[in-house]
């Protein structure tokens, strides 16, 4: 149906398309699939590729025009929100999501009418489910990030999100903390965003273990930092209503894996 095999291929001729893992790279991969008229494709990142002698491998090269043409084409066919959903789903880093996205893009391009709301289509369903998870993680980061203030007036936060949601939360924090300098660092993916009061830029902390840099920052906290952490923790305790205790519901909202970064869950004082 969607991936009609080209007559010249046999079905075992799976075409592997390797890209660098970036979103631009993925869009270039989509471009190449059309350009080379690949039919049975498996798009995967160079890191994930295990190699298989039966496979034919195509390496994607970055061309700005290519990714832009795919984007431009999509913009004409889908709403802004759906375009963003493609990006959001991509950031899930879920195995095979590239192929689902390709199926969706092919479904979009092969139809004259708008199909983005065909919620019965398998690719639309998978993307919808994935986006839901990514958005939830994004929302959780916006909620659970806790900044600590350092002596030089920098607010920093460490995160370890399930998906690569950092690019999705920048605008939120930038408009919220327009007048303060901050850093949000993803220790799992080893990069962060630094806002200097004017612009945001990507940073990587160059040292053997991120742990040491975290400790370093902690020793240089603003003198009021401890007070406000303490106030927040005690606020959190005071607002509990014992007669209504409901641990199950609590955990549903704040799963344990987020606790280590939540100030109110630390009892270091």
């Amino acid at each position, binding site marked *: 149906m969607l991936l009609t095999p080209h007559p010249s291929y046999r079905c075992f001729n799976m075409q592997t398309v390797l890209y660098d893992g970036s979103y631009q790279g993925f869009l270039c991969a989509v471009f190449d699939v059309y350009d080379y008229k690949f039919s049975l494709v498996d798009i995967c990142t160079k890191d994930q590729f295990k190699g298989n002698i039966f496979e034919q491998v195509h390496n994607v090269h970055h061309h700005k025009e290519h990714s832009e043409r795919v984007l431009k084409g999509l913009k004409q066919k889908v709403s802004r929100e759906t375009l963003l959903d493609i990006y959001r789903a991509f950031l899930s880093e879920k195995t095979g999501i590239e192929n689902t996205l390709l199926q969706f893009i092919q479904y979009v391009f092969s139809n004259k009418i708008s199909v983005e709301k065909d919620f019965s289509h398998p690719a639309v369903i998978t993307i919808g489910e994935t986006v839901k998870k990514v958005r939830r993680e994004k929302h959780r980061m916006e909620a659970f990030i806790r900044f600590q203030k350092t002596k030089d007036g920098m607010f920093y936060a460490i995160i370890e999100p399930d998906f690569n949601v950092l690019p999705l939360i920048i605008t939120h924090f930038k408009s919220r903390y327009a007048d303060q300098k901050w850093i949000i660092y993803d220790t799992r993916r080893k990069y962060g965003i630094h806002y200097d009061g004017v612009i945001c830029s990507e940073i990587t902390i160059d040292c053997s273990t991120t742990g040491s840099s975290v400790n370093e920052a902690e020793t240089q906290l603003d003198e009021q930092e401890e007070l406000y952490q303490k*106030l927040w923790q005690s606020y959190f305790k005071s607002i*509990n*209503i014992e007669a209504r205790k409901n641990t199950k519901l609590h955990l549903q909202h704040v799963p344990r894996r987020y606790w280590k970064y939540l100030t109110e869950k630390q009892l270091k004082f």
Partner: protein
Amino acid sequence: MNDRILEKLNILADAAKYDVSCSSSGSKRKNDTKGLGNAEGMGICHTYTADGRCVSLLKILLTNHCIFDCAYCVSRKSNDVKRAAFTVQEVVDLTINFYRRNYIEGLFLSSGIFSNADYTMERLVRIAKKLRLEENFNGYIHLKSIPGASDELLTEAGKYADRLSMNIEMPTEKSLKLLAPDKKREDMIRPMTFIKNAIIANRAEKQLKVKKPLFVPAGQSTQMVIGATPESDWQILKLSDGFYKHFNLKRVYYSGYVPISNDNRLPAFGTPVPMVRENRLYQADWLMRFYGYNVDEIVSAEDPFLDMQIDPKLNWALKNLHQFPVDINKADVNIIKRIPGIGLKSAYKIFEARKFTRLTWDHLKKFNIAANRAQYFVNLKIDDWQRKDYSPQQIKNFILSAGNSKYAANSSPQLSLF
């Protein structure tokens, strides 16, 4: 010094926690000034209490000194509790510093009434004003309108606050007289009416494209204490309905009474908090606001209490079985919304997807519906399940015995709606 502020925060957060509202959504305040904060868009729950309630705002009283003696309130004059009061600057500092660390969306400031209404209201307004004008703060501010406050102060409050609320507390005037003898319902209704009209005027001028400052952009809300007095759900929901229709309220909150006193006018210590009832009221409220149900379809004078075993939507469907099963592929979307187990989002997906293909039960299952409830009410072939002419009671029993934990005795408020 630090210990003192810690103690004050403990006392004044503890006293404020029975106000259940913690919403920080619905405002339109943007950070245009390159200042601190942004109250545009959806509210965020930054954490949850051990009982699973959303913590979005720094919710505190300015003081718990109070000249009134409302029986259901921990801060009542006659209660022997530690008293404290924040200074204006202390509240400002806490708000700003919590906000900068991403602990909160903003401030929800309420207060006991010290000396008189205007004196108290003036302090609340002063804090909001300072946050806005001196700290360039664009986060969310919810102020309590103090019963009996003057129009001038309410107007001032409206300029700086995103939301104003006035708790009606008791569903009937009779209960209010009994439990809060110092309060007059009139003193609550009048400010609500005044703010309502000021909001309408502000929005009307906005429509004329006159550049007007924001005025209570997130509207007004109120709260009722549930289970302290004998009112029926019908009385409660009728009142809510009136608030939504005639006062344009954004939200009515229902707060299950937590026993805090051995006053014999009230449920004794140890009486369980009516959490299931509270949850049912929220569900009913949701049906009125988003599902197009009329209050009289949910409860009536003849049948004045909500069913505690099943949610009001299922209850309505069982009483109106003649309207089911619904043809998913043809029915009006407003009918689809009324199918138990199908929420607003699933209804929307059904409505859009059926333009492309004839929907089957398999599709529906992918739309996040509660299949064990919906199956009784839709006209589709369902796997190997046999449709029969069940009675409402039979369906109810099947659904209850399907062991959905949602119906367990201690189901939680504000959790899952349908």
